[in-house]
């Protein structure tokens, strides 16, 4: 299933520091079309920082990003969107006080012939997309503040797929959700994957993502410990990578691997 020709995304030797603190040091990771890569590590391991470089929220100090083999200039979230990179953030980055349709189209509103907002058209499209994702969703007229965690998450995901994202970044996608909603998000990820979208899942909890991911990439102290296909390693081995930085035989060691 994995097309090993050209990766969709290649992040090569990325470094980011805040003041004197090196949040990410020479980290490299790649992603192929239709693949799910889980970025794992403790809180503060640098995984969110690394991925925010890709989504344009942080600037990198060094390193290269390639999209489809071409070097990409990503300096802000607008640049990232131009490359088809959509991010769903941990803190559910939705504007609480506006309704689902407004959130779905935020920054890319549909307008009428005279340039005013076409709310009816946006709501119609929102109903269509949400109907595909979450058929039980009915509360289109209400501010997102009034929705449950799962409903908000589906709004955030709908927002990403509405604009034909090719690369989807999900930061702790199920952290705020109950078991049923988590299963729903899992189905959704499989559906997006089958459409050829590349997905980065970021999590500090391996159980959330191990079954969904094709590969895992583990980070520790700002460095990549190692990368492995989920078929070649066990959960315990990955836990060993997360906690100790110990690289099992089935994985490729990175710069952050425990030196024996």
């Amino acid at each position, binding site marked *: 299933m994995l097309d090993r020709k050209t990766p969709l995304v290649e992040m090569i030797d990325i470094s980011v520091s805040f003041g004197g603190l090196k949040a990410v040091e020479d980290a490299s990771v790649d992603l192929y079309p239709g693949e799910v890569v889980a970025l794992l590590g403790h809180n503060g391991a640098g995984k969110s920082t690394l991925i925010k470089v890709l989504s344009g929220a942080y600037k990198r100090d060094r390193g290269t990003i390639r999209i489809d083999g071409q070097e990409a200039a990503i300096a802000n979230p607008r640049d990232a969107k131009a490359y088809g990179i959509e991010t769903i953030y941990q803190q559910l980055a939705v504007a609480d*006080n506006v309704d689902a349709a407004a959130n779905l189209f935020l920054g890319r509103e549909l307008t009428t012939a005279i340039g005013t*907002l076409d709310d009816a058209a946006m709501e119609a499209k929102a109903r269509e997309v949400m109907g595909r994702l979450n058929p039980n969703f009915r509360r289109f007229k209400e501010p997102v503040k009034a929705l449950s965690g799962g409903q908000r998450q589906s709004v955030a995901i709908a927002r990403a797929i509405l604009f034909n994202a090719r690369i989807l970044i999900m930061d702790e996608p199920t952290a705020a959700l109950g078991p049923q909603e988590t299963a729903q998000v899992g189905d959704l990820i499989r559906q997006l994957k089958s459409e050829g979208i590349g997905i980065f899942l970021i999590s500090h909890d391996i159980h959330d993502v191990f079954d969904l991911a094709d590969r895992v990439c583990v980070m520790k102290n700002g460095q990549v410990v190692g990368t492995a296909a989920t078929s070649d390693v066990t959960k315990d081995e990955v836990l060993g990578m997360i906690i100790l930085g110990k690289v099992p035989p089935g994985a490729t060691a990175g710069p952050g691997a425990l030196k024996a």
Partner: protein
Amino acid sequence: MADQNVAAAVQRAQTPPTGPIQRFLAATELDTRLIGMVGALALIWIGFHILSGGIFLTPRNLWNLSVQSSSIAVMATGMVLVIVTRNIDLSVGSILGVLGMVMGVLQAQILPAYLGFGNPMIWVIALGAGIVVGMGIGALQGVIIAYLGVPAFIVTLGGYLVWRGAAWWVTSGRTVAPLDATFQLMGGGPTGAIGFFWSWMVAALICVGILAIILFNRQQRRRFHFPLRPVWAEMVLAALGCGITIAAVWTVNAYPWPIRVAATYAKAHDIPVPEGGLIIPTGIAVPVLIALGCGIAMTFVATRTRFGRYVFAMGGNPEAAELAGINTRWVTVKIFILMGALCAIAAAISSARLNAATNALGTLDELYTIAAAVIGGTSLSGGVGTIVGAMIGALVMQSLQSGMVLMGLDSPLQSIVVGAVLVLAVWLDTLYRRKAN
């Protein structure tokens, strides 16, 4: 639009309509907050009418009230956007002062030298220049806030001092008077109103507009197969809107020109004065028309344009707006530019009403403007507020002041009451929101 009546929407969702009042509110989709505010205004009016011995609810007082509220109402429409994005503007009163001076000097001292006194272009050039300077001041403050990262409170606190000082500097403190005759019309007064016929024309236009909007919305909902409002609810809304418009215009037309003004006018135009004096209905005052125009334009901007959508999204969650690819800094600058332009319009109204530009013009107006926006339901924590609410807020503030003057209350006592009412209003609003959540 849902972002503006969060609380109402939440309430609707949680309690299925049961009683007749709930059913009425659900069907008309009226904002309960707005209804509350109109109710409070009605209470204030009736209260003062009784306390002042029946002189508050007279065409004359209501006409004056409408003129006195205009300047603050114009600025409050912009202040809503400023506060919605979690900023504040403490400098609007001082900006009003300096722009009043700039426009005054331009029309009274500079332009007549080139165009001659009374040239009909003078007021246009003066107002245009005022708006451009206002936008420049707003842009400067906006850039410092958005791009240099200085908090709006500090930038506009500085602006409060800077622009008040600049107002003094324009003429070294001298008052500029009299102003251009056409420019003066913007301040109201018997001649600064549009008269009987045109007032009814405006009323007709507004009524047609209300009907058109209701029909258009219904058509849009049908086009996308959304649930429609019941027909009776649409009828009630149309009747309410048109009824209020007609009542307001009837009131201002019931206020005749003062006898002496009418007599002078009769003499100048060779009109025979009938027994009991010449009755000339005043009609809608020009500043009120300007304020209404600003209110409609700003409501359009806030609810129907991308810019307005971004303003509310930024207020709700600045980070989400930034991550959605909105250029939040530039939007902030644009809000302050808009605020500057509105200050210029308010300055024209205030100085024209005085028929003079003084360096104290607009003193304390920033506080009244902020109070109007806040009483009108704009939340200081951002994301919530309506233009129409702020304009009603301005009317509430002015009603309180005017009512206390009619009752003969001392000026220090007036300040105490206004201050207390502001705090009370925000407390009630907090209770309302907490209950709604």
